[in-house]
């Protein structure tokens, strides 16, 4: 009975991971590369590097926007993305000859180092890993469902794996890889050892993946986790044409005054006269992402029409803002990214060794089956 039960768990372990083995492996590998997408951008594109040989302080973001505006007088700036200190600040804009462009501005020198009118490696890796580039319909992408549903597969494989592997905790105290007892033993030992040492990582990836699945369903069902940015009331618009009195620099100052530890990450300028500045940034909260502060600032009055911070978040919003740093490994900077990258590789390796173990068992079973058939055919033929 105990044997049968073990066989059942073993089969279940295979059912969780084998049918979508190749896609799962691809998602693991692309996720692993995506961990270092910022660093790879720095390595491969000198124009994306924010070199600072003179150790200058970073210029205010509004000044970088002004630089783009000076260099391209007919441009309209839409948003600004601030990355790590070693990467340039990205200023997105439209121009008469550019439907969409990104200016890579060195935040220390103020120089525009590149105009990118295509896609970025960071976005490409994020889209490839997150939704396999499946197009977004209104509110959902089949690929996003497919990838986030991998969390169920991962959690199932983890639980069944731990049930099969009796006394698995011994892998912590007495890790073993038997190198001289055949290929299958090496593979099995590696698979088990990697699995046990990755329990925490598998749990983190499953939990955040399940959250992404919940989030996908909520997007699809049109349930807002965060309220829409408010609109300027028509009564607040002046009767005649004037420039809005609160410019981008002033809006940034208001945000900084409201939250002194505000570190800008994604800043959107108004897209019409009733639109507001939407300013997002991180703060001194280790577990929250770089969008945990969110302010809507009225360009006509300077009023903060809406604000969000970790202190005022609902439970769902909190989950939303702590999931990404845990999933991406960004919570402790480059060192945690390195750990996430390593365990990403281990996880990819587990999916490969798991498949190889299954493959060798299947080949053996097929051979055994053929031999049995042949043996049976001989006496039959002799009759």
């Amino acid at each position, binding site marked *: 009975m105990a044997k049968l039960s073990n066989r059942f768990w073993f089969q279940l372990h295979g059912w969780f991971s084998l*049918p979508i083995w190749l896609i799962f492996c691809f998602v693991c590998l692309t996720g692993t590369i995506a961990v270092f997408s910022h660093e790879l951008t720095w390595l491969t594109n000198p124009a994306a590097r924010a070199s600072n040989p003179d150790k200058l302080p970073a210029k205010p973001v509004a000044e970088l926007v002004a630089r783009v505006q000076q260099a391209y007088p007919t441009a309209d700036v839409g948003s600004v993305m601030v990355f790590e200190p070693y990467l340039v600040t990205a200023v997105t804009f*439209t121009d008469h000859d550019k*439907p969409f462009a990104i200016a890579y501005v060195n935040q220390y020198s103020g120089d525009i180092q590149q105009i990118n009118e295509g896609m970025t490696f960071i976005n490409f890796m994020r889209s490839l890993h997150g939704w396999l580039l499946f197009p977004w319909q*209104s509110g959902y992408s089949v690929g996003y469902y*497919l990838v986030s549903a991998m969390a169920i597969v991962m959690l199932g494989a983890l639980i069944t794996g731990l049930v099969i592997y009796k006394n698995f905790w011994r892998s912590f105290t007495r890790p073993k890889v038997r190198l001289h007892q055949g290929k299958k033993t090496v593979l099995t030992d590696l698979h088990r050892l990697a699995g046990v040492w990755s329990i925490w990582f598998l749990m983190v990836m499953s939990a955040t993946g399940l959250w992404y699945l919940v989030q996908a369903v909520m997007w699809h069902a049109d349930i807002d986790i965060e309220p829409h940015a408010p609109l300027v009331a028509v009564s607040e618009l002046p009767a*005649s044409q004037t420039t809005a009195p609160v410019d981008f620099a002033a809006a940034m100052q208001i945000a900084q005054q409201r939250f002194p530890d505000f570190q800008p990450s994604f800043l959107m300028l108004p897209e019409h006269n009733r639109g507001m500045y939407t300013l997002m940034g991180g703060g001194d909260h280790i577990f929250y992402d770089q969008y945990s502060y969110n302010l809507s600032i009225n360009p006509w009055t300077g009023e903060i029409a809406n604000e969000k911070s970790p202190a005022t978040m609902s439970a769902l919003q909190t989950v939303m803002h702590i999931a990404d740093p845990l999933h991406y490994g960004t919570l402790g900077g480059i060192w945690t990214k390195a750990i996430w990258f390593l365990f990403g590789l281990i996880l990819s390796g587990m999916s490969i060794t798991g498949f190889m173990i299954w493959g060798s068992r299947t080949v053996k079973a097929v051979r055994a089956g053929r031999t049995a058939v042949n043996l049976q055919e001989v006496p039959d033929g002799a009759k």
Partner: protein
Amino acid sequence: MAQSNRFWQRHKFKLNGLVLLLPLWFLYDSLNPEFPPAWPAQQLGQFEIAPMPLDLKPPYAHHDQYVKDFYLSFSQGDIAAIRQGYLNIGPAPLPLAELQQHEEGILHGSRHGQHVHAIAPPQLAATDKVWLTLQTWQGEVLTTSWPVPAELLAAR
């Protein structure tokens, strides 16, 4: 049932591989986007405007409102002269007093062109038109319309 199960068992890894070929197709698609042709431009005050639907699909639901996405290109006129503008699809233009209560259907974008999630009925009818309502900083309210083309009416 047993047969489909056998098919799945035999070909599951090939199917995995086929799914992984799709990103290549989607990448090609995203690098070579195709849009339906823009509609004829119309003069409205100082502006000459041509709308272009982003696709030929029926309107989609966004919260409690059905909407259809358009891009408006301006061959004449200064977009900065617009105080506010809206696009709605229906038998008649919605009054500005009603439109300005909400954000649905508001024109947004840059001085080089405007995007809009036009307020739309769930199903487009032959009697519907696409109505553009602009208010200039001089307080002038301008309205024009385009008939809904047959290929959009036939969208399912």
